[in-house]
């Protein structure tokens, strides 16, 4: 048979994800105080973003938190020019940024880059470029309460 039939279908499943004590503490500081706080391993000193309740390297629980800097360095980035179902509308730039004082990099949008020319945008977003954290005025206690901007766009 050359032409076989197809049937359209889909799953539409909803969840209530538990934010947990570690995430709740992080998002409350983000929303209430416009601060990015991170857990620090008592053994190896690793300051982890996104925050975690234990150090996976030392396999010990963590209860110490520190505040990290409002600037950081790009470690990896990309610009997405095409639309994928249920993903952000293109074009958008995202980067993993090592915030000053953190030991791991955290991803977010970089919003002050001209994305009309992909190659030019990629040059501006190079690894090693400095960015700052910009908070939204109305914060909701989600990861979208802040984004990154290039210090020199």
């Amino acid at each position, binding site marked *: 048979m050359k032409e076989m039939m197809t049937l359209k279908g889909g*799953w539409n499943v909803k969840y209530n994800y538990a934010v947990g004590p570690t995430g709740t503490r992080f998002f409350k500081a983000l929303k209430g105080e416009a601060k990015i706080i991170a857990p620090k391993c008592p053994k190896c000193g*690793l300051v982890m*973003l*996104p925050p975690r309740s234990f150090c996976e390297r030392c396999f010990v629980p963590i209860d110490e938190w520190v505040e990290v800097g409002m600037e950081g360095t790009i470690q990896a980035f990309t610009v*997405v020019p*095409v639309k994928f179902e249920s*993903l952000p509308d293109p074009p958008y730039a995202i980067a993993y940024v090592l915030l000053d004082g953190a030991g*791991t990099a*955290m*991803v977010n949008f970089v919003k002050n880059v001209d994305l009309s020319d992909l190659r030019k945008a990629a040059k501006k977003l190079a690894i090693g470029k400095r960015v700052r954290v910009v908070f939204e005025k109305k914060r909701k206690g989600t990861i979208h309460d802040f984004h990154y901007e290039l210090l020199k766009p």
Partner: protein
Amino acid sequence: MQAAMAALDDAGMTMEDIEAVVYSMAPSEFLGVNEPDRWCVDAVGGRGRPFMRIHTGGATGISAAHAGFYHVASGLFDSVLVVGADKVRECRDSQQVLNTIWDPLFERQFGLTTITMAAFQAVRHMQIYGTREERMALVAVRSRGNALNNPVAHLKGRITVDDVMASPYLCWPIKKYDTCPSSAGGAAVVIVSEEKARKRCTRPAWIKACSEVANTVFLGDQMGGMAQMDFADSDILAMAAEEAYRQAGIRNPRREIQTAELYAPFTICELSMVEALGFCRKGESGRLNEEGFFSMDGGIAVNPSGGTLCANAIAITALARVCDGALQVMGKAPSGMQVRNVRHAVCTGEGGSFQFHAVMILGDDD
């Protein structure tokens, strides 16, 4: 069913000879049928037999082959069928599914996909080693050329670096031709005890090593700061390979391995992986590939089948690597795809956020 029959035929066996079935099935969201291992029991001869599903993401096929090996190596079974199938092509929103690999609180919102993940690896490889987009493109050129000799490859043909460079960006610097297709397919291998293999097969492929290593899902832990490894390098694969070489007694992989079937769904992955496997030094793979070292007549023929870049039916892609590696050792690969004098073939699988790597080494009677 077709894959199971083909493997049994090749082994000169029937379903009657099989004592247990290992089912190779990755995320069921691509198929759109929940618990597909329950759905497919009959089609793979699972009825009335011990039956288990293995799932380690993209590495599923190798992990399933490992499980098949462990069944036999334990002494509990003499002959096991490892089999699976996938229909990623039927999923209209595969990147939406892959986005759900990431943390829903902190990472998923930024449109992370396997393609952006490849972009992050590429930009770091470019930054650290000076790798250029054209050198990544050459991996696709060689793969599609090799796939011309593989009757079951999904994508194949003579393309040029310019064709790859002109294909549209999916996310910078990853272009469409740097990327694997969404494929449908099945695969199967029969794993039997040493005694049975010697009786039934003039030139069997012996399983010389099985190893797997896992890592954190958080990509940002592997770049700058207090990172213990760099996301540019497939260091987890290097750890798995080191263990596999120890098991197989391989001291100099570059000299003792003739061919490799790698689970590299993006061109950059292959460049990073051949370095991790010790085929060359870090940062050297792009140049060596250009010089033909990884071509069919080069030092190590990488992906004679065309590999994952030319067909990716996720649940069985890594099992296809094992099939193709075994065919190379047994001398049964299709003409043109067969590498000469294969003593050792390395097969790999990779799952999750490049966070899980599995290695199987197949060798001749030695």
